[in-house]
């Protein structure tokens, strides 16, 4: 079963602990600017929204890479960058429709989420249900349950 990093943005408080966990795992330092997951704050609508690679099944970045530096981790489904192969051409950053693969000027390679090898640290430190790591095929179940409950309540009300 493939698991995915699932985002429930309405639960995000904007604490940026996920960015610190990510940067620590990958860079050995607490450095939100080098995190693969990013939390965006929208003042106008009072929302904090975490955003990260969703590990496309047919990944644009992987398709675009001219040196085959991006491969699929068979165990996790993550699209991973092999740093030794990456030439830093940045074509993947153009190909990705979501902007979730980015160039690191210090290493001269690209960085993206690799699901920490199958146990993402961002999820472990998130103090709310904003981030979870769940079965891809049931990612919508919580929302379905939520709306199903409302549907049921409506019938209940009209029956009364």
């Amino acid at each position: 079963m493939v698991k995915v990093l699932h985002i429930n943005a309405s639960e995000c408080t904007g604490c940026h602990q996920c960015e610190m966990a990510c940067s620590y795992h990958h860079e050995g330092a607490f450095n939100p600017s080098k995190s693969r997951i990013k939390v965006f704050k929208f003042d106008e609508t009072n929302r904090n929204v975490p955003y990260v690679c969703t590990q496309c099944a047919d990944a644009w970045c992987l398709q675009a890479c001219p040196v085959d530096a991006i491969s699929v981790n068979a165990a996790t489904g993550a699209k991973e960058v092999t740093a030794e192969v990456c030439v830093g051409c940045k074509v993947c950053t153009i190909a990705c429709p979501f902007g979730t693969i980015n160039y690191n000027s210090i290493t001269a390679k690209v960085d993206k989420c690799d699901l920490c090898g199958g146990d993402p640290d961002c999820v472990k430190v998130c103090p709310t249900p904003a981030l979870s790591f769940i079965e891809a095929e049931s990612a919508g179940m919580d929302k379905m349950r939520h709306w199903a409950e409302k549907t049921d309540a409506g019938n209940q009300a009209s029956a009364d």
Partner: protein
Amino acid sequence: MSWTQKVLRVNLTNGTCQSEPLNMEWAKKYLGSRGLATKYYTEECDPKVDPLSADNKLIFATGPLTGTAAPTSGRWTVITKGALTNAIACSNSGGFFGAELKNAGWDMVIFEGKSASPVYLDITNDQAELKDASAMWGKSVWDTEDMLRAARGDNDIRCASIGQAGENGNLYAAIVNDKDRAAGRSGVGTVMGSKNLKAVACRGTQGIQVSDPMKFMQATGACNQILADNPVTGEGLPTYGTQVLMNVINETGALPTRNGTEVQFEGAADIGGEAMTTPRESDGKANLVSNAACFGCPISCQRRSQMDPNHFSVAGEPKYHGVEGGLEYENAWSLGAATGVNDLEALTYCNYICNEYGMDPITLGTTIGAAMEMFQIGAITTENTGGIQLEFGNAEALCKICDMTGLGEGFGKEIGLGSKRLCEKYGHPELSMSVKGQEFPAYDPRGIQGMGLTYATSNRGACHLRSYTVASEVLGIPEKTDPLTPDGKAGLVKAFQDATAAFDAAGICIFTSFALTLDDVAPMIDGDLEGDWSSETLMEVGERIWNLERKFNMDAGFTAADDTLPQRLLKDAAKTGPAEGKVSELGKMLPEYYELRGWTPDGVPSNETLSRLDL
């Protein structure tokens, strides 16, 4: 370790920015933030310095845990001599600015001198330079942040700035970062304004490392779990914010009301945390939209509020119709109970004004409360106020006066003096609810005895954040004590003062101390820094900081006579509630406190004490 070991020294007179090494010997003795910056400040400034002169300095400081994965690591501190108090000023803020500063590679920024014209400090990692801020002068905190982002073309910068209040000489101007987080008290923003320093804009991408990652991560994980499991930090604060206290403290009979003439407010339920979550009659929406977090904080006690757009204070003014920083307990109390106003929307508006213009809401609300009392007894008339009926409970008058104070207009200029100077000016010094020139906050010492000693001995003037004995006396943390007795409070206050100084110096939020003890914090610092750090070491650091601040104040001219309370608290008994008939029994607690501190009967740290603490 997390120290970048770099201090940025900014000479505003010469326009220079220079890097110098952090004094690591001092860092071992004073830990960081409040402690280390106070050491730097007291080494470099004459205690008699005029706070608003070019000779005063202003320090922005991070702690060792600032910007790390430690819970609540967004804290940073401003150290200077307070414009309101003439005492050591230490004002601490959350938000994101402090972590950004550390990520830019600076442990501390020391501002000295005075610029000839308005400037802002622009920091991008190692690069720091002063730039012209003429276009921002006269603008609010909110507009200044927007202008800085536009000037940099970078939405990710973090800013700390002053609003109009910091420019126009208001004596309790705040330094506000991230639009609604503030180093609020004692007039640190006034000092910043006196130097023609409008703002600091910062972008940091260098990252922070710790000495022993495994130990550090284990300790932070354990602390996060304790915070999540604790009913105050895991549930009460996220749900209601600090406003969880309004009804609790009112029922305790310790909610200073109408300038401290009473200890319970009949309108408390209208302005507390529960009221913020209740749909309004006017538009069916609740004032509270959500909570939010500062950097690295799993508690998330920030309030995000949205006002009724048709409320008289904001009707026709769309800039106040969005979601902004909402009421905290202190602000709801000072702007509300202290003025007798129970209009939640009006208080929310006044709170916005404090963020926008950059003012301390505690001193603002309590000064208006004092002015209202003088208006009631005829010491101030409509001739003074420009026609405003400044009566207790008048929400329209409150909103108008807050506007005028932020802009320094009309009678607002006088409210901007703070209650001590205002009450002296109108012949009623006894009506200022202040200690060392700073107004006491939302806990009446007649109903919570420990807070009387807390206020009287606080080094930065009356304050709840130096030793929050409410935790013990009301909430039972770490153990319940009787709020109505002075017995044992000297020891309690000393222990809270020293521990709080250690939390502040570490660079984490004092709200963690509802759940964490120094035994929990010490392993994080031990994993972060070199050397051995235990809770005992941290308590010693806290005591050292307290005595250093005290010594500075004594050298500045304060004496034991300043360790007192407004006469009202010592002589006029509480009229209602559990504390009915009680006054503050400060006289019983103070001598015991001096003795426990190792100070002379005159409140001076003895040579033995100074030597024991290596001061």
